[in-house]
C-alpha cells in the first residue's frame, strides 16, 4: 500500500480541493455506466442488430462522456485547485537581522536636539532609509530585533517584507532610557543559532550611541561570534559634537569616556567581517546603506511563490463539452414511430443504434 500512499501524497502535495466532503458525490459518476440519456426500446430479436464496432465505440464514448461530465462537475464544485507552489531560485541577497536602538536619544535630530521644522530625527531618517533598503532587497530573509534598556526580539527571520516594514515603521516611536548594546548584539546573533543555510548572514546594527558592555556579555559575544560567522555592520548615527568612533580622542581614551569608540574596537576584535559607518546626516546614512547593499550581494537560494490556481472553471468547461456531446447525441436520437402497416417491416429494420 505504500505506493498508493505515495501516489496520494504526490497528488495532495500539488493539488487540493476546498470541500473534500463534496468528493463523495463522485460515486454518481458510476451511474452513466448503468443508464443512458436515451430511451430504451425493445426490439423483437437481438439478432436483428448487426455487429457494428463503430456503434459500440460510440456507445462507450457516450457513457464515458456522461461519467466525465459528472466527475468534472463534482471536482469543480469541490473547489479543485493547484496549490500554491514554491519554486526555489537563485538570487542575490542575505539573511539579515536588523538590530535597532530604541533609546530615546534616537528621537533627536542629528544636531542632538528635538527636531524642529524641516529637521528629521535620527530615528525618522533611519526609518525612511531602511524601508527603502528593504524594498531594494526583495530576496532577503529579514529578522528584526531591538534593544534599549533590555533586548527585545521583534520579528523572527521572515520572507514577508510587509511585516518587516511594519516593524521598521515602529522605530521612530518614543524610545526607552538606556542603550544595552551588548545584550542586543547577543540577541541578534542568537537569530542565526539554528539557521544552517549556507547563505550570507549579516547583522546590521543601527544605533546612535553605545554603552559599556558587561565583561560577561563580552565573553558571551565572543563565543557567539566564534559559533556563528556573520557579517557585522554598524551604522553609527553620530550626533554633531559627539565623539567619533574612528579618531583617537585627545583626552582620556577609556571605555567609560568613549563607549562608542570602544564598542568599535571591541567589534573589530571579534574576528568577524566588520564594517562601521559613521553617519552624521541623512545623506551619509543613505550612502552607508547603499554601501551595505553593495556588499551583501552573494548568491542566496530563495523561495518564490507561485500563487494558487483555481481549476473550477476549467472543470466546468470540460463538463460543458461532455454534456454538449451527450445533447448532440440525444438530438440525433430517433425513435421508432408507429408506422403505417404497409411500411412496418422497414421501420423495424432501422433500430436506433445507440439505444443500447
Amino acid at each position, binding site marked *: 500500500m505504500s505506493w498508493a500512499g505515495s501516489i496520494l501524497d504526490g497528488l495532495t502535495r500539488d493539488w487540493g480541493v476546498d470541500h473534500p466532503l463534496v468528493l463523495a458525490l463522485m460515486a*454518481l459518476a458510476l451511474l452513466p455506466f448503468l*443508464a443512458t440519456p436515451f*430511451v430504451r426500446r425493445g426490439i423483437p430479436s437481438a439478432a436483428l442488430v448487426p455487429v457494428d464496432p463503430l456503434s459500440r465505440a460510440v456507445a462507450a464514448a457516450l457513457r464515458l462522456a456522461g461519467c466525465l461530465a459528472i466527475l468534472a462537475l463534482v471536482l469543480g464544485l469541490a473547489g479543485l485547485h493547484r496549490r500554491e507552489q514554491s519554486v526555489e531560485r537563485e538570487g542575490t541577497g542575505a539573511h539579515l537581522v536588523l538590530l535597532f536602538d530604541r533609546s530615546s536619544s534616537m528621537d533627536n535630530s542629528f544636531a542632538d536636539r528635538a527636531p524642529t521644522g524641516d529637521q528629521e530625527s535620527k530615528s525618522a531618517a533611519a526609518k525612511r532609509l531602511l524601508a527603502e533598503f528593504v524594498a531594494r532587497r526583495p530576496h532577503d530573509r529579514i529578522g528584526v530585533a531591538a534593544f534599549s534598556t*533590555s533586548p527585545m526580539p521583534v520579528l523572527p527571520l521572515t520572507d*514577508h517584507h510587509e*511585516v518587516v516594514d511594519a516593524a521598521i515603521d515602529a522605530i521612530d516611536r518614543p524610545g526607552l532610557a538606556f542603550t544595552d548594546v551588548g545584550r542586543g548584539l547577543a540577541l541578534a546573533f542568537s537569530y542565526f543559532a539554528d539557521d544552517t543555510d549556507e547563505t550570507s548572514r549579516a547583522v546590521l546594527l543601527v544605533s546612535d550611541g553605545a554603552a559599556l558592555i558587561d565583561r560577561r556579555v563580552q565573553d558571551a559575544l565572543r563565543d557567539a561570534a566564534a559559533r556563528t560567522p556573520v557579517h557585522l555592520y554598524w551604522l553609527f548615527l553620530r550626533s554633531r559634537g559627539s565623539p567619533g568612533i574612528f579618531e583617537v580622542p585627545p583626552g582620556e581614551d577609556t571605555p567609560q569616556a568613549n563607549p562608542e569608540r570602544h564598542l568599535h574596537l571591541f567589534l573589530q576584535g571579534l574576528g568577524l567581517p566588520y564594517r562601521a559607518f559613521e553617519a552624521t546626516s541623512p545623506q551619509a546614512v543613505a550612502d552607508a546603506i547603499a554601501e551595505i547593499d553593495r556588499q551583501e550581494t552573494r548568491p542566496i537560494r530563495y523561495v518564490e511563490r507561485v500563487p494558487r490556481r483555481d481549476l473550477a*472553471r476549467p472543470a466546468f468547461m470540460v463538463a460543458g463539452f461532455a454534456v454538449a456531446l451527450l445533447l448532440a447525441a440525444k438530438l440525433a436520437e430517433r425513435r421508432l*414511430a*408507429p408506422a403505417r402497416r404497409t411500411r412496418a417491416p422497414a421501420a423495424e429494420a432501422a433500430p436506433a443504434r445507440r439505444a443500447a
Partner: protein
Amino acid sequence: MNRVARVATAGAPLVPARDWRFWLLLVALLALLAALLAPRVALTRPARDILLVIDVTGSMNVRDYATGGAPQTRLAAAKQAARALLAGLPCQSRLGLGIFTERRSFLLFEPAEVCENFAAIDGAIDGLDWRMAWEGDSYVTSGVHAALALAAGLKSDLVFMTDGQEAPPLAGGRLPAFDGKPGEVAGLLVGVGRTDPSPIPKFDQDGREVGFYSEQDVPQENRSGPPPEDAPSRAGWNPRNAPWGGEPATGTEHLSGMREEHLRALAAQTGLGFAPLDGAPGLIAAVEADTRARPVVTRIDTAAVPAALALFCLGVLFGLGAISSRRPGRLPVQ
C-alpha cells in the same frame, strides 16, 4: 407533422426524441454555460485592525493556569490565546504587537496584514518573554492610557492583556485621571490569571528562578503624594516625621491574583470592554464583541450555484435511468 411525414416517405419512420431526458440535458448544458459566465459577487466580511499589547511584568510569571495537567504561567496562557486569536482573524485583518511594563506600552511593530504575515507575527508573539521587560514597575493604568494613545495613532482597536496588578499599588487606591476621550478607541482589557492570589516567582540577575517574593520584597503601599485620611489613626503617626504611620506597611501585594474589580473600573473609565481570559474561544468571542469590524470586500465566485443545478440534472437523468427497469416493459406497439 410535415417533417415526420417527410422522414417516413424517405423510408424510415423516425421521430426525434424530445422526452424529459432531452430537457434535463438541455437544462444541464445551459446551467453549465451559466456557471462559466457566472459573475464574481462582492461580499463584505468583517476584518479587524487590532493593536495587541501584552503585559510582560513579573506578575505575569505567576503559574495559575494549567495546560495538560502542568502549570502554565499567565504570560504563556496569554501568548497561547493571542496566537489562537491571530489564527482566528479573517484575512485582511491587521494586527500590531506591543508590550507593556513600567508605565509605557512599547510598540514592537505596527499593524500588519495577518494572513500574508502569519508565520512572522505568530513567531513574534511566541518570542515574547518577561526578560523583555525593562523595569520592574507595573503601572497598569498608565500603560493602558499609553496604549490607547498608541492605538488611536495607529487607527486600531486595542486588546490589552494584563493581570491588573499595579506595582507599586495606586496611591490611595484611586485611578489616575484619563485625559483621552473614553470610547474613542474601541477594544477591551483581557484579565489574565485566576482571581485568587498566588505567589509571584522571583528571579536573580541571571534570570534563574530563586523562589517567590515575600511580603517585605515589594512595596505594600504607595507612599508618594499626600498621606491617606486615616493616617492619624495609625500607630506611631507623626505629621512631620511619619505621616504614613510608624510601622512598615503590611499587605498582600506580594501575592498576585487577577484584579478584576480594578480592571473593570479601568475599562469603565476608558470606555473599553472587559473579559477574563479563559481559553482561546472566549477571547475570540470577546474580541469580536468589543472591537470594531471594518468591512472588507471579498469576491465570491457564484459559479457553484448553476454548476450544482447541472450536477443535479445529470444525477436525476442517470439516476432515474438506472433505477427504472433495465429491460423495456414491452415491445413497441405494432
